[in-house]
């Protein structure tokens, strides 16, 4: 078995080519049914392509879960101005490592997805914004894209259809905020990656001032399969509100961390216990962050009956985000980890909005003080107050993303904080 992340119960749509070097070539990808999705899109036309994706119920895999077909339908129908598709490959949400796997193992899956998306929204140019650290995976994608150009799959007259679609790979230079869609647009235009106020929404005024749509790598990668087999086919998996399959990135305290593909709605505990081999060293589950570091922390109890779909995780008090399941056992020092997250958000705040610039920094300092054993119980109230002021008061949701783990950790692991504050005891510290 070449690829270590396999489990017999997986549903492998997106991950079928993982671990197979042959899938990186045009010939290898075509042998797996590649480029049939874009061929069908070109055959049925732009409107029908959007309808097919709408019918599939595919929701954005970048974290927000917005219906993809609906997003595409917001784009102007006329072609008076250039339209752009932007692929968000700035994967940098802590705990998330799925897009990199798609890019480095199945680059044509993404290229084909970019073609489908571009065609659907009437874009003649697609920019793939890759995070700067992805040197190796970007080189794989670059070589694949060169081959796709050579084969006439991308560029002028795509597959003899008369439609022109160019793709350009653009790399960033290390800034988490460029994964926010309007921050990404700012960065693509050669500016600081500062998010912009919406409205205007990107479909009206996007990259270079033109109508634009931004989709995540995994979202676009799913579209060729939907076009090839039909929207109804995709709905055979998942739930009514969360159709299809999803890559679950499991990290932290499990025996076999990795990317596993399952229908949405898959039980969280089954993923942790059965698929990932459970928690090693006989330890017990303490907490899970189910969707990347920007969502509320769940206690072990919250996870018990939680299905991994958008509505299921929401009902359990958190968010599915990009399905990055960070598993923490009972040795985990929650205060330290929340402080580390706060440091991350303070480092990555672009600094435009005061509640975020100041809030992330002060929250980090207070958490550090508590971690160092110099905190007071009042500090917990202050943290909650700061967090509330960081919620819904800024241009983008970066500060909200820190507020959620802070508030939820104090609610659910108050005893850990109090042990440090009252007795100087670090829970879980080795």
């Amino acid at each position: 078995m070449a690829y270590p992340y396999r489990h017999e119960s997986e549903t492998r749509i997106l991950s079928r080519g993982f671990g197979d070097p042959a899938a990186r070539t045009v010939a290898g990808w075509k042998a797996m049914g590649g480029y049939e999705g874009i061929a069908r899109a070109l055959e049925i036309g732009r409107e029908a392509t959007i309808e097919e994706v709408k019918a599939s119920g595919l929701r954005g895999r970048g974290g927000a879960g917005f219906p993809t077909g609906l997003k595409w339908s917001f784009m102007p129908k006329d072609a008076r101005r250039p339209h752009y598709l932007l692929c968000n490959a700035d994967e940098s949400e802590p705990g998330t490592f799925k897009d990199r796997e798609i890019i480095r193992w199945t680059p044509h899956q993404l290229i084909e997805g970019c073609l489908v998306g571009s065609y659907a929204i009437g874009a003649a140019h697609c920019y793939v914004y890759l995070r700067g650290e992805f040197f190796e995976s970007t080189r794989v994608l670059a070589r694949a894209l060169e081959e796709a150009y050579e084969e006439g799959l991308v560029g002028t007259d795509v597959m003899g259809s008369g439609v022109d679609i160019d793709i350009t790979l653009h790399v960033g230079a290390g800034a988490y905020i460029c994964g926010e869609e309007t921050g990404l647009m700012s960065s693509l235009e050669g500016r600081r990656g500062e998010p912009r106020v919406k409205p205007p929404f990107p479909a009206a005024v996007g990259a270079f001032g033109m109508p634009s749509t931004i989709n995540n790598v995994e979202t676009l990668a799913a579209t060729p399969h939907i076009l090839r087999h039909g929207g109804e086919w995709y709905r055979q998996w998942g739930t009514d509100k969360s159709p299809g399959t999803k890559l679950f990135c499991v990290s932290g305290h499990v025996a076999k961390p990795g990317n596993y593909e399952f229908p949405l709605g898959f039980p969280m505990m089954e993923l942790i216990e059965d698929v990932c081999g459970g928690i090693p060293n006989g330890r017990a589950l303490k907490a899970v962050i189910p969707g990347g570091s920007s969502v509320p922390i769940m206690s072990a109890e919250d996870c018990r009956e939680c299905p991994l779909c958008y509505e299921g995780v929401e009902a359990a008090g958190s968010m599915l985000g990009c399905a990055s399941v960070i598993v923490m056992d009972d040795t985990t020092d929650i205060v330290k980890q929340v402080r580390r997250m706060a440091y991350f958000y303070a480092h990555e705040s672009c600094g435009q909005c005061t509640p975020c610039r100041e809030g992330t920094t002060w929250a980090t300092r207070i958490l550090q003080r508590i971690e160092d054993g110099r905190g007071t119980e009042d500090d917990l109230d202050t943290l909650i107050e700061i967090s509330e002021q960081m919620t819904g008061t800024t241009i983008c949701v970066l500060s909200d993303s820190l507020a959620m783990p802070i508030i939820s950790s104090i609610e659910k692991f108050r005893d850990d904080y109090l042990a440090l504050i009252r007795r100087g005891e670090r829970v879980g510290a080795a």
Partner: protein
Amino acid sequence: MSDARFRNPGWAGNTGEFDLTEADVRGSEFVGEQPLDGGHPSVAPSLPYMLVKKDPEAPLFEGPYLERFEKIRSRYPMARAALIPALNLAQELRGHVSPETMDEVAALLGLSDAFVRGVATFYTMYNKRPVGRFLIQVCTNISCNIRGADEVLAAFLEHTGTELGETSSDGDFTIAEAECLAGCGFPTCVQINSRYFEDVSAKDVPAVLERLKREVNDGF
């Protein structure tokens, strides 16, 4: 051989169920040599590399690098959009982006010096001062952290005899802390120049450093 586990970096080394080579994982045979001129224009903005060899006096831009720069410019509807790829290219050549480099890039693109400095200082990956032949960036964010990233970082500092952000006396290593590198399933994830080394634990650090030393000597 102490670095046996590094036959498959970028991998879940602890599951023991794989049979791919490092070249398979990294795709190095598939991608081949890096074209200095940037290859096809569609990929030219995406090809900067962090190299062992750095020349702080390298001209901006000449020969194949000028070709790559022109290809980059051809892909955007406005000149300014070429700024980040151009700064990346400057760093590939020079190893860091000094204020003078920022001004040179500004002149090339017809932008103001102040604007370019504002952009260049926004992004973490631009080294504002020279770094060692190998820039070793250890992820200490949550997924790696709960699996011992702090110890890995400490081991790199100890075995290179450096402080965080400083360069070792032989000029080989600069150690830095990095935010999530998107290799969370393979903790600890370490970016060394252009490559990822994954599943790195504190005890693996000497073997990683030995390998890098060998690569310098081999003229890597």
